[in-house]
């Protein structure tokens, strides 16, 4: 099987037509392939998130990771960009939806696209993946430990994000949720609340909560990494996308 991949930095038109830096990884075969928008965590558009993006290409998906902090910090190192964005309250929801919409359009326009696009996000990106799925016509969405889908950010924080569980009724696609039982943002109770709303709205979803894992259990470069949970989580992602995004 021809398994060559290509990965490079490009720019994509996002919200308001702004040119957004993006990391684009794709298989070089004829396809057709599904598309994945990778939504980075709050610490930013970093080497580990780019590695995740390449992993999708290696496994047969056209993948794009937007630098959500392009407007605040184009050209800055990921941690400097994240510090600036944090001080300004993070990424506004409307802008996120516009940017992911631009990536979705880009992926659907590729000559070897099968017309299907999903999202996956980690941490703040998990909430943003859910937000994209209630705002855009997507085919699959994965939420990895996204906080504040349910629940409010702490008092006095500059963070602009608020709860969005009330938008569950608008979910456009199946949702896979992967969470750690020891996480407090989101807590198991908050995950249950989201699950109840998904049931009430008759949505297609699969949730898995891993014992012995907390927040950021997919992060290979952090003490939070939990290989068992991450390995099982990746298998569930391939199974889920295989059903909803593959040709």
């Amino acid at each position, binding site marked *: 099987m021809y398994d060559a991949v290509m990965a490079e930095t490009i720019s994509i038109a996002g919200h308001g037509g702004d040119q957004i830096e993006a990391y684009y990884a794709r298989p070089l075969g004829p396809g057709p392939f599904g598309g994945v928008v990778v939504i980075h965590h*709050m610490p930013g558009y970093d080497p580990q998130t780019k590695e995740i993006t390449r992993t999708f290409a290696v496994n047969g998906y056209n993948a794009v990771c937007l630098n959500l902090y392009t407007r605040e*910090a184009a050209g800055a190192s990921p941690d400097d960009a994240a*510090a600036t964005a*944090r*001080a300004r309250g993070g990424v506004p929801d409307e802008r996120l939806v516009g940017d992911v919409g631009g990536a979705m359009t880009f992926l659907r326009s590729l000559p070897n696209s099968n017309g299907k696009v999903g999202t996956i996000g980690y941490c703040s990106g998990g909430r943003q993946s859910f937000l994209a799925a209630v705002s855009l016509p997507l085919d699959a969405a994965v939420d990895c430990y996204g906080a*504040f889908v349910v629940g409010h950010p*702490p008092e006095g924080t*500059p963070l602009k994000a608020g709860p969005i569980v009330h938008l569950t009724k608008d979910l456009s696609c199946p949702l896979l949720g992967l969470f750690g039982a020891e*996480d407090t943002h989101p807590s198991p109770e908050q995950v249950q609340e989201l699950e109840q709303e998904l049931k009430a709205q008759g949505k297609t979803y699969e949730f898995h909560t891993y014992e012995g894992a907390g927040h950021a259990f997919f992060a290979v470069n952090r*003490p939070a990494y939990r290989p068992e949970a991450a390995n099982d989580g990746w298998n569930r992602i391939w199974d889920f996308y295989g059903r909803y995004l593959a040709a």
Partner: protein
Amino acid sequence: MCTYQTEQIKVTGSGKGADGWFGLTDASVYYDHPVHAAAEHSLNIDFLNPGQGPSARVAVELTAESARALAQAIEAALASVPAGLL
């Protein structure tokens, strides 16, 4: 987990970053995931000057214990300043 809470203050002074000295206008203080320190969470301080762009930043990541010791050392240093100097 990502804690999201951020203390923000205005500061006056100077900091030495990757490209040398620059004037400081702001500081963010938060207990959250570090980028470099080997811990799940750390007390992070960003000394910033937004007007000079995101790379105008001096960043530190400390254990909670170190951060408390630093806070005490700051108070002690200021308390020991001779009369009339402050």
